[in-house]
């Protein structure tokens, strides 16, 4: 049997997904038996030119992590799409935009102002910003253009499968790899996870009635280890998040933050969570409702923590 050819790439990401790929531990030996890695900038010395020289569709699978934030990300996404038979958005950044996507609350200018001028540790009296082209004595230097809006991989190229998670759990990664190795692939467009239901379905905590008079932030209380975290007033995102991770955060007494993306059939994860959260507020009095809601300091950032670029509006409107 000829070995599978696998490419791995990171675009706008933190590197956690690369580690998550390795978190399959000894199963990586099984992967190595059946697959050759033909491109993986983090682990092996390949150049972009090597990819350009490959024949179209000569790579069997590309695991692409990271969002599309600049020209280089977009170029590699299009290049790897052309060279790969199967394109997989690996991890929340490429699937939904994730943390880099929070920058869609701003635009390029606001981001640059913050990073190169306003940050307390920055001294930049001449207001020097990165330029895509700059002349130096040795010639002209070029860096990729930084975009106004962060996009998901599927908003940039055609994507065959999605693997959720920030980063994907070992069991989720292996579920996808196993399907690839055995050639038992799900229908195109599938979000590969052990569950299509909400995380609550696999959370071991006891659930009674959800009636919230006050929301808390995790540092404000030590939650009861047995009771549902949302019932205790923590913004646990489990009700609006796809399961499959094994409910690891709630089991460590931390509320779910929603990294596995929306449950099957939901278009906008943030709106879904907003709706669920509103329905557990225990008051019919407008002023009291307002007081309870004011406990949430940053609703948009909380509800769209992982999914702003993949939401209906994709970004905030900047005047």
């Amino acid at each position, binding site marked *: 049997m000829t070995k599978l050819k696998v490419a791995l790439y990171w675009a706008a990401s933190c590197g956690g997904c690369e580690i998550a790929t390795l978190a399959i531990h000894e199963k990586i030996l099984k992967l190595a038996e059946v697959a050759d890695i033909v491109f993986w900038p983090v682990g092996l010395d390949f150049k972009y030119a090597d990819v350009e020289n490959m024949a179209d569709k000569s790579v069997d699978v590309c695991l692409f992590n990271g969002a599309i934030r600049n020209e280089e990300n977009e170029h590699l996404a299009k290049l790897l799409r052309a060279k790969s038979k199967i394109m997989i958005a690996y991890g929340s950044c490429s699937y939904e935009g994730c943390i880099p996507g929070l920058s869609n609350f701003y635009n390029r200018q606001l981001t640059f102002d913050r990073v190169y001028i306003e940050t307390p540790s920055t001294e930049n009296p001449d207001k020097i910003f990165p330029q895509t082209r700059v002349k130096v004595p040795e010639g002209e230097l070029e860096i990729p253009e930084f975009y*106004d809006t962060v*996009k998901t991989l599927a908003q940039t190229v055609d994507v065959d499968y999605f693997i959720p998670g920030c980063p994907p759990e070992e069991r989720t990664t292996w579920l996808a790899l196993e399907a690839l190795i055995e050639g038992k692939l799900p229908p195109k467009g599938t979000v590969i996870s052990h569950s299509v239901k909400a995380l609550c379905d696999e959370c071991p905590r006891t659930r009674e009635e959800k009636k919230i008079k006050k929301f808390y932030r995790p540092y404000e209380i030590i939650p009861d280890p047995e009771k549902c975290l949302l019932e205790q007033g923590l913004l646990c995102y489990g009700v609006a998040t796809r399961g499959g991770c094994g409910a690891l955060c709630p089991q460590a007494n931390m509320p779910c933050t929603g990294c596995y993306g929306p449950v099957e059939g939901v278009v906008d994860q943030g*709106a879904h969570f907003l709706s669920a959260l*509103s*329905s557990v507020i225990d008051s*019919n009095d407008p002023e009291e409702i307002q007081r309870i*809601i004011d406990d949430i300091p940053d*609703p948009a950032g909380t509800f769209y923590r992982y999914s702003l670029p993949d939401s209906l*509006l994709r970004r905030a409107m900047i005047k």
Partner: protein
Amino acid sequence: MNNFEPKVVGFLCNWCSYRGADLAGTARMKCAPNVRIIRVMCSGRVEPTFILKAFQLGADGVLVLGCHPGDCHYVEGNYKTLRRMKMLEKMLPQLGIENGRVRLDWVSASEGDRFVSIIDDMTEKVRALGPFKQNSQEEKHD
């Protein structure tokens, strides 16, 4: 922008507000033609997704009308709407959607005149805010 005619999507509950709109119609009251009405069984049916979708598709404002508190045909559907809309009111400005673009109000089946005044008022407020152009923010590079 003198010719700007705001597009407002209005979600009206079947039991009170839609009847109120009907009453305004049969009584031949005049009101601004800018609100596109969608009938829902209860204002509680209006998911936040509907409102965001309306803006995504080019609406300049969204109006949600339900039964007065205490009058809901389904007992407390409109209270659920109230909580949701309060939460949305807090979140939407972070996405660049000013509060005047989204409004929740109550109209009963007998309040045709109130329906007209809300429609006219909403239309003028959205007109003053100007067009909501989400798409103008899209990337020029692609």
